[in-house]
């Protein structure tokens, strides 16, 4: 349980700025992760076009045979999405928490250039801690 396979953060233009793999069997090289991120950005936008009702803000959950993909889009267009085991709960709140960490440790970092790949130690540290905590909490139940 609480098996997150990977986490991606993409900027508002669709470029990948952060990728973390937590144990998926298939390793993707950097180029593939970049392609997958841009593809997701475009699919997210196209899904808004196909909505039968106005006010669509894009895909929030994609369910496949072997994984679920949860996506959270901030008001500025930055997307946080996580690939996890089918039926994992509370990924939405985890993504919102990652957004908080992003605003605290990345955006408030004076050396960070916006829209560029994230290379902030504190962000990494806190992110690993919270993913581990989630794992332990859900295993304990």
């Amino acid at each position, binding site marked *: 349980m609480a098996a997150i396979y990977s986490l991606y953060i993409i900027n508002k233009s669709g470029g990948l700025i952060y990728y973390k793999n937590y144990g998926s069997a*298939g390793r993707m090289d950097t180029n593939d992760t970049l392609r997958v991120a841009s593809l997701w950005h475009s*699919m997210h936008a196209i899904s808004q076009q196909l*909505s*039968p*009702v106005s006010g669509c803000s894009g*895909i929030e959950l994609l369910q496949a045979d072997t*994984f679920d993909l949860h996506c959270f889009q901030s008001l500025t267009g930055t997307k946080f999405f996580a690939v996890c085991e089918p039926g994992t709960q509370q990924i939405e709140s985890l993504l919102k928490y990652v957004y908080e960490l992003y605003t605290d440790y990345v955006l408030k970092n004076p050396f960070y250039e916006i829209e560029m790949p994230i290379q902030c130690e504190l962000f990494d540290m806190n992110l690993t801690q919270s993913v581990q905590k989630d794992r332990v909490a859900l295993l304990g139940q």
Partner: protein
Amino acid sequence: MQFFGGSEISPSPPAPTASGNNGHMLYVFNRNGICLLYREWNRPLHTLNAQQDHKLMFGLLFSLKSLTAKMDPTSAEKGNLGVPQLPGQGCSFHSFRTNTYKLSFMESPSGIKIILVTHPRTGDLRDSLKYIYNLYVEYVVKNPLYTPGSPIRSELFNTTLDQYVRGIA
């Protein structure tokens, strides 16, 4: 996904829990991207004209399948992104949900894709899509006057389909 192996030959519907107006629209595509059927029950917003809408829908599904096959965390060997996959090969998605709609998707082994767009709080519609595929087989494929690959024009199929979709919760 198990297609063959059920004990019933004729379609048996899952119990309908009629709440009426849940289905927005339905698309049926064949393996070449031709839209065999488009039914619309409740669609206040039309962003594009019909042709472009069908192409966009087919393209979206093609790309999403390619994406899920590539992102599959349980398989080690994957082809490149964008390589056309055989129906059933690679991990495929069965639904996605946005804040305004839920799209359920099913592909048969022959490449017939059935897409149902409903209210976002709808449950898992995989069995309903299988039932709709059975309806397609009974009323369309077994119709001697129907040429495969051409748009479906069967009143009986349309009526049965409408009735069934109205019964999906």
